[in-house]
């Protein structure tokens, strides 16, 4: 059996404001195994982003336990966490923003910049390295944030709707590229998305989460063989998965 990179066990979580309590997650259990790509689907406000924050150790759940790479999570852990907002630092250029994870590790500046520069073309960002976030489009910022996330040295990635602001072609290019590097580096991913098609196409497994307070309503193994080609989206197996998920989403 493959080792589990991430385990969330019976997580309940709420946000507290003034004297009100908002229950967001209700006994959520999920896991991501080594090299696995797992998607999290669910309606808006169901607590998907909250799950990622808890998995990264940035938010303490009311109840339940979290394990990442075999160790219990008590504080922030080093993971490739990409928040829903791109969160590029406005005072750093695209190049400097992307190099942050390397510089934070104490890598020399020149080497860090070189590594980022090599990846820029893949993300369609070549030529924009000197731009500040205020000068970039929404999709460009998202791609830069993804590039930065990939450079965080961890075999677990937590991605919160990384492709939401992208056009179809850019989105598909980045999806292909992601699949190839994940395969190459044996990285595990917990991936939040609103797109059922994207989830099926990319995932080994999909969790469907209910409306708030979120709980897992469906778990679906995607048995499509890899490597997958785009034509798979018209296969009857793909459509069956889609139907099943749409049904679950309607009931969620």
């Amino acid at each position: 059996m493959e080792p589990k990179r991430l385990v969330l066990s019976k997580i309940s979580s709420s946000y507290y404001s003034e004297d009100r309590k908002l229950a967001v997650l209700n006994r959520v259990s999920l896991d991501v195994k080594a090299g696995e790509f797992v998607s999290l689907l669910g309606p808006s406000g169901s607590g998907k982003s909250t799950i990622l924050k808890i998995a990264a150790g940035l938010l303490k759940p009311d109840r339940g336990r979290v394990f990442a790479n075999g160790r219990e999570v008590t504080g922030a852990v080093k993971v490739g966490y990409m928040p829903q907002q791109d969160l590029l630092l406005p005072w750093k250029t695209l190049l400097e923003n992307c190099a942050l994870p390397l510089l934070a590790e104490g890598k020399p500046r020149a080497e860090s910049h070189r590594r980022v520069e090599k990846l820029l073309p893949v993300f369609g960002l070549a030529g924009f390295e000197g731009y500040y976030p205020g000068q970039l489009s929404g999709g460009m910022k998202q791609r830069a944030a993804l590039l930065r996330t990939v450079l965080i040295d961890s075999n677990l990635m937590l991605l919160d709707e990384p492709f939401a602001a992208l056009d179809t072609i850019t989105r598909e290019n980045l999806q292909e590229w992601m699949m190839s590097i994940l395969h190459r580096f044996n990285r595990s991913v917990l991936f939040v998305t609103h797109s059922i098609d994207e989830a099926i196409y990319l995932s080994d497994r999909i969790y469907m989460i209910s409306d708030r307070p979120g709980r897992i309503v469906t778990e679906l193994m995607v048995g499509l063989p890899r490597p997958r080609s785009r034509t798979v989206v018209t296969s009857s197996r793909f459509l069956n998965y889609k139907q099943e998920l749409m049904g679950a989403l309607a009931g969620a």
Partner: protein
Amino acid sequence: MKKKSLNNILPLGIILALLALWETVCRVFAIPDFFLPTPSSIARALAGNLPLLLKHTTATFYAVVAGLALAMVVAVALALTMDRWPLAKRALYPPLVISQAVPIFALAPIILIWLGVDLKPKIAVVALVCFFPLAINLVEGLEQVNPEALDLMQVMQAGPGFIFQSVLLPAVMPYFFSGLKISATYSVMGAIIGEWLGGSTGLGVYMTRSMYSFKTDHMFAAILIVVVLSLALFKLAGFLAWLFMPWERVQSKE
């Protein structure tokens, strides 16, 4: 381009027109110089006393620079303390505000008793009027730091030094510089007040002496220098902001 030059010329024209009006009114009504000197006699007082004025200006300027530096150190230390410990913020805010509510002149005797005369009380007064806008702005700036950006630093396992220089410092810079613009403008006034309290050199001393000897034109010359110095420091603060925040430059161009 054309609009910009017009924007520069217009205020200058208004000032010149006002000066001309002032000069005319003084002459037409034969107002005595000790009551209200004409711009031309102020200019003469200025030109005729340059070395002496320069000496006093230098003395004032030293106090301003030293006081501002002291204010920055105090403000940064206070702001960091208040941001780090919420209890410190609640405890320190009221005395901070009180320190500004008490008139400087009421504090004057105490300052003199504690610090003696001349340079030290001057610096103290400058620092007292300057640290407040800096500290308040810094505290607010630290409050505004995006907690999600700090989260991001956490998952990169960045050290405190790295977080400080890549997130906290740049995030508070705009707040710091808007505080500095206010402080820099007040600083000269602070030094003048300090010199009135008790001093032997400086523009404040020069103004007092001119007043007692009814050399109102000399006094106005000193006031003119104070104004120019304050404006220059204000502009300098703006320039430093421009220099240290290249990212703001790019955005404001759009």
